[in-house]
């Protein structure tokens, strides 16, 4: 990991009907890092990710990819650089795993350019990365939640982006699959920004950004910023960070503050 920025957001904000959802956020995503995004429900995590993905145009502020404003890029140009795995992307179509992953090649193909060896290789590699090669002919409606999430990540991987955005990818998964998805994302050779629901997962990220009511509260390595004070202020809980005596990941012990 080096410290040069791949994506820079300068003072971006988004409001709907005069109601600010995200206000004046600065963020600089570094090459190769895994950046966690945490905050209470409704703190603007999804909206921020959608702006970074170019799906929402900020009401104010500017987002630059490698120094170039993404507002000036076409959808296809953005899709070759940045992809998003959103929370609920479902289908009733009886699409196979392989076909779903092949969709990731869309920004690299035109009506006249046929499917090529590069595309085939990217899809195979993506299926291998999420360990779904053996299930490539399975139909969507036969997959479990964790398998579907892996297919979405494979689709995003096949898109060959430089920046991968994930919106609470571990939602509705059991603990084993939560950790499997997070480990998978960390092993992919791509910069990623992950909105996370579980603060424990944030401890596994290189850096964490904390949002409250659409504003940036803190940004830094999890060990530095996830303090008792911050948890009380942002999540209204008393928290103690307990190192695992066996040397594993630290634990956070929570106690709800009654007077909120």
């Amino acid at each position, binding site marked *: 990991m080096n410290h040069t920025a791949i994506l820079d957001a300068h003072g971006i904000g988004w409001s709907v009907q005069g109601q600010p959802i995200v206000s004046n956020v600065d963020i600089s995503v570094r090459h190769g890092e895994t950046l966690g995004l945490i905050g209470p429900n409704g703190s603007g995590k999804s909206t921020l990710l959608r702006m970074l993905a170019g799906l929402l145009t900020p009401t104010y502020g500017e987002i630059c990819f490698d120094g170039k404003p993404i507002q000036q890029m076409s959808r296809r140009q953005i899709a070759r650089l940045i992809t998003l795995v959103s929370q609920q992307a479902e289908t009733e179509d009886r699409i196979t795993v392989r076909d779903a992953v092949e969709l990731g090649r869309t920004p690299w193909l035109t*009506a006249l350019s046929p499917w090529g060896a590069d595309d085939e290789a990217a899809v195979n590699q993506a299926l291998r990365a999420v360990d779904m090669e053996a299930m490539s002919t399975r*139909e969507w409606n036969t997959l479990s939640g964790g398998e579907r999430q892996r297919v979405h990540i494979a689709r995003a991987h096949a898109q060959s982006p430089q920046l991968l955005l994930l919106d609470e990818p571990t939602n509705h998964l059991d603990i084993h699959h939560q950790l499997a998805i997070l480990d998978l994302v960390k092993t992919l050779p791509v910069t990623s920004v992950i909105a996370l629901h579980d603060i424990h997962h944030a401890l596994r990220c290189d850096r964490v950004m904390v949002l409250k009511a659409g504003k940036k509260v803190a940004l830094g390595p999890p060990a530095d910023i996830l303090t008792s004070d911050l948890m009380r202020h942002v999540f209204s809980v008393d928290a103690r960070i307990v190192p695992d005596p066996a040397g594993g990941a630290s634990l956070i012990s929570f106690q709800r503050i009654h007077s909120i």
Partner: protein
Amino acid sequence: MMRTDAPRLTRTSWLFITPLVLMAALLFGTAVGETQIPLSTVIDVLSAKLGLSDRHIGSVDEAVIWHYRMARAVVAACCGAGLALSGLVLQALLRNSLADPYLLGISAGASTGAVMVTIAGIGAGVISMSVGAFAGALAAFAFVALLAYMSGGGTGVKSAGVLILAGIAGAQLFNALTAFVIAQSANAEQARGIMFWLLGSLSGVRWPEAWLALPIAGLGVGMALWHVRTLDAFTFGAENAAVLGIDLRWTKVLLIGTTALVTAVMVSITGAIGFVGLVVPHACRIVVGVRHRQLVPATALAGAVFLILSDVVSRIIIPGQVVPIGVITALVGAPAFAFIMVRGRRR
């Protein structure tokens, strides 16, 4: 469950299969009818007309085969392909398995536009019936989309129910407008003719109509084939399509605009033929799978063949009487619609 081994055809096989099947259907459409004409005569007339032979056939048989049945079969094919593809495109873009030009009120709007030009005389001879139908189709779709959006369907039109309810409201409104225009302006004779046409009918269709339908159907097929990857990209919804690099606004304007144009022109020729756009794409999905590079050619071909056959049935089912083709497609389509709804509920 393993993948159903759907037949995957290459581009070249589609290029071979499509003309063969289409020619067989057209031949069937011209050979079968109330007047019994031997198949050999039919083939003689067709080869003479296509410049393959110079045999002269009796003028009555020739008129029936070429000017009546062949023109009808060609229009049926264009209409079937156009309406089926319109349904397919709407289902893909709106992520709604019940989307169809008829159910979304587009056909009703086209009827209103056509009736306003022909009966109420709006445009005073400057605007053709097809232009009127196109304006009506766009107006109806705009109304339905706006209603669905305002009642909480969201920009991606997430809720299937909201869109269909809006479509029902739109269809009712525009059908009422059509009936109002007819009641106000048409005499009894005109009214009867229009009512028959509104149910969807190929009666009275000749070559001039075929020459209008052919390029429009060609445009619809070409546009859908050009956008097969775009349509695939909508599999996981509109936002995911945008993530995959699809310009949503441009795509919707282009593809829904084409759909409205194709539907409008077809309705201006044949009246509102229902359920083709709903049933044919679903039947094709079962056979060739959900990827559009297979689904688009299959749907166009199946739609063309389905409507040619429906027309044949409409001509011979009651001896001495022609049933509107819309009645036949609805008799097939309504049960299929019910089946899709019930299956959708079980999911």
